[in-house]
């Protein structure tokens, strides 16, 4: 379990949410004033197709579920980042891409970038962390990632964008596919892959899992703002 940093507002609601997240379905839920656990742990309501989604055994963490923990090098920061290290401190967005992808991936990354731009414009940059992760470390060297971030207009000064790179194809497989449930096949700069963006709240719980392509126009920003405002 990761360390929870509660250097943020220490109000009753946060405490309740933390308790709910830690309990993960344990009977202590009954002590929390009768609110349902799921409702305490997410700000956004269930997604439109949630009833259907629940019936499918989705391979990735979906709405209301905790994100898995993985520690991955962040080559532009000269350190490792753990996917859960911002729990208690920042909301997060994650996606899984390769930089030479010309179709889906730029849309996924630009969805994160849109929220980053909004976070700077609307003064919530310190409330968010963005973690795009490559599954093609052989092609995506630190230099490639650096150039890619420039092309996508990433704001480095906001200090909330961590591009992650597992340091071998084996580790990429373990993290992206086996841990986060994002399937891919291919090699050397050409892949078929499923598409996922996770919007995760400060307790590490998924508020939205956008799959099958980027969120509809503007929806990512709307959801991120609703999360910040509702927290």
């Amino acid at each position, binding site marked *: 379990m990761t360390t929870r940093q509660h250097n943020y507002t220490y109000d009753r609601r946060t405490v309740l949410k933390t308790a709910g997240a830690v309990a993960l379905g344990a009977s202590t839920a009954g002590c929390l004033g009768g609110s349902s656990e799921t409702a305490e742990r997410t700000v956004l309501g269930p997604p439109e*197709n949630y009833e*259907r*989604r629940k019936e*499918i*055994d*989705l*391979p*990735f963490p979906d709405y209301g579920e905790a994100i898995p923990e993985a520690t991955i090098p962040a080559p532009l920061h000269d350190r490792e980042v753990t996917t859960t290290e911002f729990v208690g401190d920042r909301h997060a967005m994650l996606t899984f891409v390769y930089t030479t992808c*010309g*179709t*889906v991936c*730029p*849309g996924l990354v*630009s969805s994160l*970038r*849109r929220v980053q*731009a*909004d976070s*700077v*414009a609307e003064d919530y940059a310190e409330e968010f962390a963005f973690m795009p992760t490559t599954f093609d470390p052989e092609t995506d060297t630190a230099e490639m990632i650096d150039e890619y971030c420039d*092309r*996508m*207009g*990433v*704001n480095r000064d906001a200090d909330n964008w961590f591009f992650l790179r597992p340091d071998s194809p084996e580790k990429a497989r373990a993290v992206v596919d086996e841990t986060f*449930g994002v*399937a*891919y*096949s291919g090699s050397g700069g050409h892949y*078929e*892959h*499923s*598409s*996922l963006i996770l919007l995760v709240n400060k307790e590490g719980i998924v508020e939205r899992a956008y*799959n*099958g*392509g*980027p*969120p*509809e*126009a*503007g929806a990512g*920003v709307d959801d991120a703002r609703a999360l910040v405002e509702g927290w």
Partner: protein
Amino acid sequence: MRRRDLLVGAGSLAALGGGAAVAFDVVETTDSAAVEAVSLDVIAAPESNADTVMTPERGRVTFLELFATWCNVCESMMPELVAAHDAVGEDVQFLSVTNEPLGETVTREDVATWWREHSGAWTVAADRDLTLTREFEASGVPYAFVLDAQNRVRWRHRGRTDAEEIRTQIRAAEE
């Protein structure tokens, strides 16, 4: 019913896991309602000093392309757009619109420079608050649209296309 884009390679992706299947339940449709005109900030325009442009325009056909300067496919399509633009007359509103965030890392000047470098000779504008992008439910770039003189969407296309296809669709909307 909402319009959604069919992702490139959707069929092969579906085989990769149950997750992919959820998003592909609605295929693209074109509705016959007129689109409401929106005002966009002009970044560069030939022979005009207007700060804003209204699109689509009633009374003539509109061609719209949503793009971003980071988008390689958009970049590679510029010669096709140049050719299509050369072939159509003043009776078509021909407009490119970027919906990338501007002013913080990428500026209006950056877009204007990119536009010059890629021989853009028609109006380029910015969809700053995504009004147009949302109205057209355009979840990616490039995304091309042709609207008829009554501002009804007659053609929408996600991804790469060419000058011939654009001209064909404009001609069809003019009939």
